Each structure stands twice: as structure tokens, then as C-alpha cells.
């Protein structure tokens, strides 16, 4: 048993719903008790979809358990087919139905429906939402994909775009950005899936020359199968950030046999110039903590350090499946990755790292609010605010511009920060002042830790410490105490404080 106050990922059948809801002409019959229909509101309220997810819940009750829940499933599946007339159906069980072992796949087959029915086995007590989405997409691709057709000679190179789903973090806008980019390169889009695809479209996947994988958490297993079955190579680079976008373009150009040089030369990107402009000097070395799904966390770590000049003080993910990649990336920055799906552990890691900016999920946004640290959201789990009315991709050249703005705006502007440093005793500034544009969200100062018994702080040194910005104050306190202990200093004076500062700033 795991004590959870909040979770980063839902159960695996939510992942299956994200795939089903993204597609057209597909219906999901879910063996589930009353109450599991809450999942509909994720799509209708958070994503503000104007249609119900294409899901029929069997709605069994306690009194059915002694009777025939299997018959209930068959009735629901038959009626769903008659009412919605889908091209294909997926069937499966939620956590409770998994326990009663009715075998939805077998029951659906027994109905002899005149459409393909794909049975899903999503172990609710082991796996989570992203895994469920990946498994569902893989099963659909595998079941519906037709044998590869011979590729016509002399036609434009073509690819499939794989990964975007319903309830994805900016999937809608990323897809538009990347589709435009590929089209400008002269690459035809054969099928985009799951978002907007029909089961018939999945049958045509084999006709493309290669696959563009936007979200490996979701499309990884399907792309791996397509590579084996149809000899379709897949892209590895996730085009988030300027550098990664350029590498992505080079990668797809190589796969398509095209010359990427013209498009790379023609592209002028505002984010690169903004980052080089002197106004951005104050961003140098800002301490940033990055947490999210693996794809977005890794991309953010790279862009934060290489394209904004931040210093990475924390990197982590709730996705244990990609822990190895994250650990390697963290190691390259001389830090240890935080791999956890317990938000309290993530909060503790953030407090220990004392960042000046957090790039995280909606949960880290809450943590940041509590700690009074600026924050931008870079990854699922999603919130209604993650579906902005405007075009706001994370990927491609425009994505790099969006990320530059999104990450820089929560920070204090250069001069404001200097004024705060110079006039720390101004009654409106005070030590815990938040950037003026963040309103009155004052930080909750964490209680000062007790110094080692052999040490005391002189009153004036303690006051001086209070003039140091609060997010580095804990570190300054610890460093000074360490410095004093190592040198056998009993009372920390202002002198000792500045000696320690000089010592550690070398």
C-alpha cells in the first residue's frame, strides 16, 4: 500500500481513455462500477471538450456481483455498438472490474460484432496512466495496421506523427507547430495518431517512410513495433528548445533524404536573440529546479542551461520508467536526480536545492506558491490553465519563443532585483518580498534551523544574514556555520559571515 495525498498520474485506463478520446470512430467499453465516470470530466472540464469521451461504462453495482456482471458487460457493449456505430472498439476493465475477472475481451469476441475489437489488459495495481496510453496505442496499431504496401517511387518523402493524445500537455499546439515544420521541409504527413486518427487511418501507418515520435511515453512501444513490422525508423530527438529543434530538423532531413540547410539558415528565432541581449544578463546562473514527465523535464533541463544560461540545481521526474535517462542527465550537471511520485518528497528536494525558479507540474506550482519561489509549468498532469485559448506550443521554433517568455516572466526583472538587494530594509521590499508582478504572494519563511551546540550567532550577524535573499539564506547560514565549525569559531560575527562568503564564493 502506498499512502498518497495526491498523484501525478491516474490509473492506466485513463491513459486508454486519452487515446480513445483523441481518435475518431473508436469506442471504448469499460467494465467499471458507478463512479468511474468521473473521468469524463477530465476531458469535458479540464480540456473543455465539447463532446463526451467515446466511453461506455458498464456501471455494475454491489447487487450485480453475485449475479451476472458478464451479461451486463455484453449488453453494454452491444448497445454501445448499436448506438455509436464505431469503426472499431476497445474493451477493458478498470481497477474494480479487473478483480472480478470477467474477461471483457472474450465476452466481446463472443458477441461477434462486425468490427475489430481490441482487448486491453491494463494492470491497475501495477501500472499508471502513461503506461496505459502507450499500451493502448501499441495494441491498436498492432491490431489495425495492414501489411506494408509497396512504396511508390519518386513521390515526396512521408512520415507519421505519433504520440499526441487528448488531455496532453500542449499536444494540440505542438502538433500544429511540428506539422508546419515538416510541411515546410517538404515532407508529407501520412497519418497523425492518436489525435484525430480513425481506425482506418491506423491501417495506413505502414505507408509512411518513417515515424516522428513526439511523446515517447505514449508512442514509444508503437513506434518500436512499426520499426520491426514495417522497417520504419523513428525520430529520437524531442524538438523542445532551439538546439533540440535544429537537431530534430537534421534528423528528419536525414531520414527523408532532404537537405535541411536552407530551412535552418532561413529561420530567425527571437528566443536566441532575446537570450543574448544584455537585458537577459541577469538570468545568468539563476538556480533552477526542473521536475515533470521525463520528456519535458529532460528538454527543460537542456534548454534552461544551454539557451537561458541558468544553473541546474535539481532535475527529477515522477516517471520511474525513464529514471535511467534522468539520472544520467542529472549526473552531467553534478546533481542527483529526484525520481519520486510523492509530491512531498519533491517538495523536500526543492527546499534543499533552494532554487530561484521552479519548472515543474501544477503540483510544483503549488509548492512554489507556498515557498514564495517563481515557477512555470512545463509538464502534465494538466490543469484547466494548461489549455490556453491562444496558440502556445512547447515544440519547434515558436515553442522556444513561448518557453523563453514563460520561464522568464515569473522572475524579477534585472533592475528590480538590484534595488531589492541594495535597499533590503525598505519596508515594502523586506527579505521575503516576491517579484512585484506576482502580487502579494509573500513567502512563508521556513524556521531557521538550530545551529550546532558549539556555535552562537552574534545579534548583528544574525541581522546581517536577514539581508541576504531568503532563497539563499539557508545556504549562507549553513556555509557560515560549517566555516566557523571547521575553524573553531564559537561566535559568528559579521566578520565571520563575510569571511565565509569570500571563502565559498571562490
Amino acid at each position: 500500500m502506498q499512502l498518497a495525498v495526491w498523484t501525478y498520474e491516474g490509473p492506466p485506463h485513463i491513459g486508454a481513455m486519452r487515446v480513445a478520446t483523441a481518435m475518431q470512430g473508436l469506442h471504448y467499453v469499460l467494465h467499471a462500477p458507478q463512479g468511474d465516470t468521473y473521468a469524463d470530466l477530465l476531458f469535458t472540464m479540464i480540456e473543455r471538450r465539447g463532446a463526451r469521451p467515446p466511453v461506455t461504462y458498464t456501471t455494475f453495482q454491489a447487487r450485480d456481483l453475485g449475479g451476472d456482471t458478464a451479461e451486463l458487460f455484453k449488453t453494454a457493449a452491444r448497445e454501445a455498438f448499436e448506438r455509436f456505430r464505431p469503426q472499431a472498439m476497445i474493451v477493458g476493465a478498470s481497477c474494480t472490474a479487473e478483480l472480478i475477472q470477467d474477461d471483457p475481451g472474450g465476452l466481446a469476441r463472443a458477441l461477434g460484432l462486425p468490427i475489430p475489437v481490441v482487448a486491453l489488459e491494463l494492470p491497475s495495481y501495477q501500472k499508471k496512466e502513461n503506461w496505459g496510453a502507450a499500451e493502448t496505442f501499441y495494441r491498436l496499431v498492432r491490431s489495425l495496421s495492414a501489411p506494408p504496401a509497396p512504396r511508390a517511387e519518386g513521390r515526396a518523402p512521408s512520415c507519421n506523427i505519433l504520440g499526441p493524445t487528448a488531455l496532453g500537455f500542449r499536444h494540440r499546439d505542438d502538433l500544429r507547430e511540428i506539422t508546419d515544420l515538416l510541411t515546410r521541409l517538404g515532407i508529407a504527413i501520412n497519418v497523425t495518431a492518436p489525435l484525430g486518427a480513425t481506425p482506418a487511418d491506423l491501417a495506413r501507418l505502414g505507408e509512411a517512410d518513417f515515424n516522428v515520435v513526439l511523446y515517447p511515453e505514449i508512442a514509444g512501444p508503437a513506434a518500436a513495433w512499426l520499426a520491426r513490422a514495417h522497417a520504419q525508423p523513428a525520430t529520437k530527438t524531442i524538438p523542445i528548445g532551439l538546439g533540440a529543434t535544429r537537431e530534430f530538423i537534421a534528423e528528419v532531413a536525414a531520414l527523408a533524404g532532404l537537405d535541411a540547410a536552407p530551412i535552418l539558415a532561413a529561420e530567425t528565432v527571437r528566443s536566441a536573440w532575446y537570450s543574448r541581449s544584455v537585458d537577459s544578463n541577469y538570468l545568468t546562473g539563476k538556480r533552477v529546479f526542473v521536475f515533470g514527465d521525463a520528456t519535458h523535464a529532460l528538454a527543460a533541463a537542456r534548454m534552461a542551461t544551454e539557451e537561458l544560461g541558468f544553473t541546474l540545481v535539481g532535475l527529477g521526474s515522477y516517471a520511474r520508467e525513464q529514471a535511467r535517462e534522468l539520472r544520467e542527465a542529472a549526473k552531467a550537471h553534478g546533481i542527483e536526480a529526484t525520481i519520486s511520485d510523492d509530491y512531498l518528497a519533491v517538495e523536500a528536494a526543492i527546499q534543499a536545492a533552494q532554487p530561484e525558479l521552479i519548472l515543474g507540474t501544477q503540483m510544483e506550482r503549488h509548492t512554489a506558491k507556498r515557498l514564495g519561489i517563481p515557477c512555470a509549468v512545463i509538464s502534465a498532469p494538466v490543469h484547466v490553465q494548461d489549455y490556453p485559448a491562444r496558440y502556445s506550443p512547447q515544440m519547434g521554433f515558436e515553442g522556444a519563443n513561448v518557453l523563453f517568455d514563460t520561464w522568464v516572466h515569473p522572475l524579477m526583472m534585472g533592475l528590480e532585483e538590484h534595488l531589492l538587494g541594495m535597499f533590503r530594509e525598505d519596508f515594502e521590499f523586506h527579505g521575503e518580498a516576491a517579484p512585484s508582478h506576482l502580487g502579494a504572494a509573500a513567502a512563508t519563511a521556513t524556521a531557521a534551523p538550530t545551529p550546532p551546540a558549539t556555535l552562537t550567532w552574534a545579534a548583528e550577524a544574525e541581522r546581517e544574514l536577514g539581508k541576504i535573499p531568503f532563497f539563499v539564506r539557508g545556504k549562507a547560514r549553513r556555509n557560515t556555520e560549517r566555516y566557523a565549525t571547521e575553524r573553531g569559531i564559537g561566535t559568528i560575527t559579521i566578520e565571520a559571515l563575510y569571511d565565509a562568503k569570500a571563502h565559498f564564493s571562490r
Partner: protein
Amino acid sequence: MSAAALARPPAPGCTEAPVLRERGQREVFCGLTGIIWLHRKIQDAFFLVVGSRTCAHLMQSAAGVVIFAEPRFATAIMEERDLAGMTDANEELDRVVAQLLARRPDIRLLFLVGSCPSEVIKLDLSRAAQRLNATHAPGVRVLNYSGSGIETTFTQGEDACLAALVPEMRADPAPGLLVVGALAEVVEDQMRRQFEALGIGPVAFLPPRRAADLPGVGPGTRFLLAQPFLAETARLLEDRGARRLAAPFPLGAEGTTAWLRAAAEAWGIPAARFREVTAAGEQRARTAIARHHALLAGRRISFFPDSQLEIPLARFLSRELDMQPVEIGTPYLHRPHLAEELALLPADAMLSEGGDVDRQLDRCRAARPDLVVCGLGLANPLEAEGFTTKWSIELVFTPIQGYDQAGDLAALFARPLDRRTRLMV
């Protein structure tokens, strides 16, 4: 047939109206959802759902991804190895509870809340509660109830929770009034003042704001239900000797007056005195409601089943705002507790219980009501089809009972229609 039966006058309103009972997909929450308001209501109680990742995900999704400082609810998520053997599951539960209590030393009352998976694997939470009581007494009292979707629909979770509290109430034979059902604190305070002005007392509320303030119960207890979904709690209170005062629910001016009158009559308060005390509040309520009359009168309204508040709400809207109920869907119809409400409904209203969401959507599209009251999963899709909707969950999360909330209640129904008239896009 006897002459007496023939001579009997027709039953008023919907008392004997047929009810459409359907079986199919339900678009409702399970009883766990009640924790979202109950954990704020009882300030030193904690709710530990023993369930799956789905339960945890439901709780945070239904709460609107609102994360409180640290909510007083959590989920013990069962994993593969908990399903393998009961001994392990019980040991794991003990470990999780110890971990929780170490982190939250302020907890005085812990509810172990059963879920669909814990019910299906027959994890006995009442035995677990007994065992944990032995370990954690006297600092913490551990109780259990089921909020599972296979047994409870949405607000029935509150019924199950309050029912778990009834055996904990001390025996108290003295006369007194008990108001049953979670209410906003502001509403409770208003009611307390009204009963005091009427000379009715002592008055206690279930659930209490703090676990230690759990009231007593006995043959002298008369209780008023503040909510229409408390069948099991009422039954257990009656088993303890308490007597229910039959009344409509305190929604709207008329409902609130009738509800207060039931207590006044039980306490033998003279009618003139009752009018004297309640007249001003009732007038205030009528004035506040009247402001929304023009927008709502004559409009046709349909309810999808959600909270069991549908019938009292339809009564309020039809009698005080002249709306026309088309279909009143309710997840469960408890006739004895709703007898006074049914009698006041227009005789031509269609009642449905349980439900099949696809078939009700078909009926809704055919009837084209002016306003549809429905859950969060249906509201935006219906708006996209051109319907005007009112999210029903707001009716559970907003103070709507009593005279001084009657205008707010009417406003909740007027706002979507008002918005439609303002928007030019």
C-alpha cells in the same frame, strides 16, 4: 374496492406519480466524493480511502485539482502484493495508518473509507478499525464506512459517514433538537439563532465541527433532516429512540418556513409566535428570490440524477419561481423522507430514478428544456449542443439552505440564463 377508497381525494402533487426506473450507464460520482466537503466540516477528522489509484485520482479530479495546504484526506493505494493475501493487506494498512498519524498528530478521528476494490476483495475495514482503535486509543478514534461506487452514489457517502457516527453518540434521554446533515457554517449559525428565537432547544448538529462535540441521542431527541439523502443515518437514529420531524427541506422561503414549523409544532410553539419570529426572514427570502423571477418564470428545466437534491430543488423552482420541471432525475428516491416534497410538486412532472444516461440524453434532446441541471461530465457537451446548463455539483458546495441563502439559490439557476443573454459571441 371499498366505498372509502373510491371517495378518497386524489393524492396531491407527485405523491403517486409513476417513476421511470432505468438501468444503464450512470453519469454520477461515487460516495467517496462526499469526503471533499466532509473533511472540511469535521475539523479534526481525517479520511483515509482504502482503494486504488483510481480512487486517489477521482478525489483530486473531483476537487477540481484544488490542493489544500494539506487536505485531511488521503488514499492508501492498494498494490499488486496487497491483493495477494489479506494478512499482508491488513499489515500494510496498519503501517500506512501509523505513518499518517505520525505526520498528522492533530487527528482525533480517523475514518477508514471503503472503496469498490476494497469491498470486492472483502477487506474487512470494521475489523481493521477495531484493531487500530486498540493500538491508537485514546488519542485517536478509528471508524469506518463505505463510499464505494458499487454501494453508494455521490451524497450517499455522507449518509454512510454520518451513519458510522451514530453508534458513537452517547445516550442522552433529555429532550433536544438534532439537525442532521452537513451544512455550511454560516447556515448552521443562522439556524441556531432562529431556533433560539423560537425557544426551541437545546439544538445540536450532526456532523459536529469537532469530533469531541458529537451530540447525544435518545428517546427525547427530535431530529430534522437538513439534507434529503440521509436514509441510513435517519434509520439508525430512530433505532436509538430519536424521532424524525417530517418536513420539506429548507430550500427557498416556503421550504425553510415549513422545515422550521415542523420543529416549532413539536415544541408546542404557538402559531402566532412562530409567525412573529419567522416573518421577517421569510419576507427577506421572498424579496431576494423575486429578483430572479422574471428570468426564470415559465422556463422549462430538466434534472439529470446527481445528488438527491433534485426533487426539493424542483419543488422550490416550480413553486417559488414558476419554472416548469420537465424531467426530474434522481439517483435514488426515498419516498418517506420526500413525501412532503412530492406532494408539492406539479402533478405533470416526470420522475426518473437511477437512469441510463444515453436514454436520458435522448429524452433531453427531444424535450429541449431551457435549462439542464447536470454533472460536470455532461455540462460542456450539452452546452456545445446549444443547451444552457447548470452544474449540479455547485448545489452541493454552496450554502443554499435557509432564508438568507434562498436568493443565492435562485441566482445559481438564473446565472447561466443571464450569461446567455449577455454574450454576443
